[in-house]
């Protein structure tokens, strides 16, 4: 079961109780949402520090505005939109500002790790480079669609609903994203490709 599905299932029980004023249910809901909201925010903003800020704002919004969730859509769809709006708002507020810390946090975020095994380090470095491309090189919509489709396993219809676009448009973004990332996967180690051919 994907993380989104687990949260959806938990929300089915927690949201009604939380909206009726059950503080324990609200607390549990916030804890359940937080990791996923952070990862969505990370993909949306491309920056760990910004993702933390967005996550905290979303938790505050959940606290204050959970009653606005009318249940017309899935809870995760609604939550994704709240997160996305917050990330877009943050991007607007930060537009034009220099964020010196950004490069530092990104470097730490995509560090290839410190394993003793050279093969493991090699693999980690490859994944770190790929993560860097995902977060910094791809346009935001491509990042979001690729993350939801290929890493979270959401359907095109669900992605389209979350992002407010047609499934065909979502598919086009997905193919662009795959092309960029997979080209990097196949091009970065040409010596391996030649050996294997």
């Amino acid at each position, binding site marked *: 079961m994907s993380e989104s599905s687990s949260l959806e299932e938990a929300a089915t029980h927690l949201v009604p109780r939380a909206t009726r004023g059950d503080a324990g249910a609200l607390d549990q809901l*916030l804890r359940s949402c937080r990791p996923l909201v952070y990862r969505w925010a990370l993909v949306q903003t491309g920056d760990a520090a910004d993702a*933390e800020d967005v996550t905290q704002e979303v938790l505050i919004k959940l606290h204050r505005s959970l009653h606005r969730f009318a249940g017309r859509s899935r809870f995760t769809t609604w939550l994704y939109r709240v997160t996305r709006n917050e990330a877009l708002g943050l991007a607007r507020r930060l537009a034009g500002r220099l964020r010196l810390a950004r490069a530092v946090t990104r470097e730490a975020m995509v560090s290839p790790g410190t394993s003793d095994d050279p093969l493991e380090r090699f693999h980690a470095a490859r*994944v770190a480079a790929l993560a860097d491309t995902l977060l910094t090189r791809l346009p935001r919509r491509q990042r979001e669609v690729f993350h939801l489709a290929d890493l979270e396993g959401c359907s095109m219809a669900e992605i389209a609903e979350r992002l407010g676009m047609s499934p065909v448009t979502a598919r086009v973004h997905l193919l662009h994203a*795959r092309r960029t990332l997979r080209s990097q996967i196949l091009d970065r180690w040409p010596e391996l490709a030649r050996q294997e051919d």
Partner: protein
Amino acid sequence: MDCEHARSLLLEADLPELLGESDSELVRHLRTCAGCRRAADRIRQAERGLAAWISRAAPRTDESLAVAGAAAAARRRSVGHRHAAAGGVAAAAALAGLLLLSHRSGPPGEAVTAPAARIAVGFSVTAPPGREMIVLHTANPKIVVVWYLPSRRSS
């Protein structure tokens, strides 16, 4: 299908094709070409690694602190909102009073023009030197509009 075309299709292929679980032209090529099959495996392995990397990404702030902080911030903002709303009502009442005064001979409601006035039990207001004031009681007993103006006696 030649390998160049297959590599191009691999760049956009869905997971079932990468796994060889469909019956497309690409999958048929992958069954017969070890090099392209390894390329497909490399893509799958890298994307699995990326999924694992994303799933490990977590906020650095302590969970309990973050949740408690969100609750406190939500309460603070609610209080701020109520104050802002009350301020807005008072400002609107003052503006309405000013607009009505400019069009009518006398202010609406119960108004007092004097250098000083008691506007509520235990609470009085004195105009600054050389000024008078209009105290405008609104329909809301909690809101009183006080308007200072140049004294007619001084002019």
